[in-house]
């Protein structure tokens, strides 16, 4: 022990501390959390912090507005007031007399203008600005009209920063025919973060710089978007409502994760797809009461379907892989898309009673086989590993039929049993699988299904083994997203005129894609805009404490 005697006291203290530290590291090794586990924790923490930051920023903004220094001649223009929506802004000013205000941001290269009008005469004007172009000075035209018809007009310049990171070079190509045949609106994407919307020229016009999971809910009633942050399959997840400006307004918590999809029930509650951390995943449907934040209903799909049935892509833990849900209006039922059963299922909710199954007929047990729909018509093909069903309006004016648009991935159409090695062959697609957007019509009385329309059959370049979308737009065209398998990190968006199957618009994108929605940037709800409303935060205190202090 002679070396100890040779050490000075500070050296001794440091050595002892270093020894303790090493012992601590050794014994805490079993508690080391991997990065995969840490990312949801960091993301939940940053979301909770953003809610706090939002409150501070709003308080400052209200103070600035109340200074009385902003007028038509000298308006307050705040780019990205909450620090998360860099292509949005807020304009405030007072006018000497009540005026009605509108703004216009001209499009580029023949693209649509962004136009917004307040619907009332007022002396105080708070205007959200959406759809700014990145990396340039935007020239916004502001117009005012008094009750006597007197008009004013001025230009407001709003410089924005260039997009960075993975958003820099996403656009690969755009081709379009006659612009008059394209449905107006902006293309909001489902994928991981950041969430974006792009215009008809493929230019990004909205970004939300907050960590999100893939599932998205667009509330067309108020223009708000719903996202999830945290764990995907199971575990803590935060479900939150946000405006395009980046203001978070409602926040809920669940311990069941949210994978793939969620929706509003007709009672106003949220119904979500999640899992418990058990022997199976992606097979739980649950409901959150939006007034209390409590989980008020859970349905384990193992109790209503057969987890032993084998289908393309299924394996014991992920036997069902629920990837979409749609609420059937006027009925207590849901349409569920189960990728790993290659089936679309109409199920009573909350009863859990299976009403019908649209899926290939092999392997169902007797009780479920009786629920299978019978195909009619010559060209009929079953969907395989499908995504994104959309319930269409009453297409044929027959109350007993339901029309569905579905993205049929076709993974497993010809080659039913994949193992891990074979999945690598998807790039080459030796089985000549193809993906389609398909319009099915279900006759619920006759218990039959027919195929009304399809696009993509036989085009092997568009084969998308996972993900994809097809939506009918207001003008009758079909907007689709193909997550093409033979070119990794490439998505193809097509707008198709269904009467001729002509592609009227096409964008190629340098990232994986899941779903796409064509939506306006503004709605009538934006005409009444306020600041400082409290956030309906239903995250339990102990959960907030866990993430903010941990």
């Amino acid at each position, binding site marked *: 022990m002679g070396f100890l005697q040779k050490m000075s006291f*500070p050296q001794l203290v440091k050595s002892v501390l270093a020894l303790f530290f090493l012992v601590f590291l050794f014994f805490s090794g079993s508690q080391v959390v991997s990065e995969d586990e840490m990312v949801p924790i960091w993301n939940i923490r940053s979301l909770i912090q953003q809610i706090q930051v939002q409150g501070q920023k709003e308080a*400052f903004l209200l103070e600035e507005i109340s200074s009385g220094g902003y007028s038509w001649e000298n308006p307050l223009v705040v780019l990205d007031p909450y620090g998360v929506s860099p292509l949005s802004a807020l304009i405030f000013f007072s006018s000497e007399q009540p005026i009605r205000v509108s703004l216009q941001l001209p499009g580029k290269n023949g693209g649509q203008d962004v136009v917004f009008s307040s619907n009332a005469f007022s002396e105080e004007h708070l205007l959200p600005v959406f759809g700014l172009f990145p990396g340039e000075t935007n020239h916004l035209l502001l117009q005012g009209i008094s009750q006597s018809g007197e008009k004013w007009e001025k230009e407001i310049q709003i410089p924005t920063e260039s997009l*960075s990171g993975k958003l820099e070079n996403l656009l690969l190509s755009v081709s379009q025919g006659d612009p008059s045949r394209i449905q107006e609106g902006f293309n909001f994407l489902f994928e991981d973060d950041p969430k974006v919307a792009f215009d008809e020229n493929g230019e990004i016009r909205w970004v939300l710089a907050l960590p999100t999971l893939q599932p998205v809910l667009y509330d067309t009633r108020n223009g708000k978007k719903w996202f999830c942050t945290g764990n995907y399959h199971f575990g803590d997840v935060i479900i939150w409502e946000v405006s395009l400006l980046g203001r978070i307004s409602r926040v809920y918590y669940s311990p069941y994760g949210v994978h793939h999809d969620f929706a509003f029930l007709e009672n106003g509650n949220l119904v979500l797809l999640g899992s418990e951390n058990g022997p199976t995943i992606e097979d739980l449907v649950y409901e959150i009461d939006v007034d209390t934040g409590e989980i008020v209903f859970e349905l384990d799909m193992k109790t209503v379907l057969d987890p032993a049935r084998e289908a393309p892509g299924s394996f014991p833990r992920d036997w069902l892989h629920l990837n979409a849900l749609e609420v059937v209006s006027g009925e207590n039922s849901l349409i569920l898309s189960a990728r790993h059963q290659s089936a679309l299922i109409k199920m009573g909710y909350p009863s859990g009673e299976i009403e019908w199954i649209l899926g290939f007929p092999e392997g169902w047990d007797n009780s479920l086989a009786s629920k299978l729909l019978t195909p009619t018509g010559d060209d009929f093909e079953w969907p395989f590993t499908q995504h994104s069903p959309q319930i269409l309006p009453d297409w044929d004016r027959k109350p007993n039929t339901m029309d569905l648009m579905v993205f049929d991935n076709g993974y497993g159409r010809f080659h039913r049993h994949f193992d891990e090695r074979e999945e690598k062959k998807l790039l080459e697609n030796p089985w000549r699988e193809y993906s389609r957007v398909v319009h099915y019509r279900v006759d619920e009385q006759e218990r039959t299904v027919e195929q009304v329309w399809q696009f993509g059959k036989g085009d092997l370049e568009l084969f998308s083994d996972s993900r994809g979308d097809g939506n009918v737009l207001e003008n009758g065209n079909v907007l689709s997203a193909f997550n093409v398998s033979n070119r990794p990190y490439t998505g193809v968006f097509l707008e198709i005129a269904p009467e001729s199957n002509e592609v009227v618009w096409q964008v190629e994108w340098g990232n994986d894609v899941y779903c796409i929605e064509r939506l306006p940037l503004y709605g009538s709800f934006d005409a009444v805009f306020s600041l400082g409303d409290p956030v309906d935060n239903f995250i339990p205190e102990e959960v907030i404490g866990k993430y903010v202090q941990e």
Partner: protein
Amino acid sequence: MFKSKAWGRTTCLLFLLVFLWGCGSEDAEKKEGISSFFWDVHIERWETTPLLKSTQSSVQYNGVVQTVQHEQTPSEGMVFLLLDLVVEKKQAGASVFSWGDVFVEDSEGHRFSRHPNDSFLDSSDRQRMKGTSLNFGKNEGFVCFEIPEGSAKGSLRLVVLLEQQEHSLEIK
């Protein structure tokens, strides 16, 4: 060994604090600032570096975490000067804080503007101050300047033009 992660972390933190207390410098950091009628500006901390490295992670569609590495280097013979700034509007009213009026000045009087696109800071572990004008509230974050290696070895000042008057602050 430890009943909870919190206990273990507290112990670890305690040891580290003792260690830092024993080894720390005697000089407590004082934050000087620039002040005008509308604005207060001060430097929280600063650093120079020849390379910015970072890792960004996000949760993918299937729940898998994807990690992307980023690296950013300055031009030949230059280094990055990173300033963690607080820019606070202390008086509401029509005054704008413009980055065109902010410079770093070296000991020979050469002035350098903020990097024209330091958005790469977003992907580093630092919170970046947005690059467009500020007109309300308390704004915090890093900004980046590219300065010659030689300048970085001498004294540096932050120069800000506020309400038509030049203010400066030693970067130390």
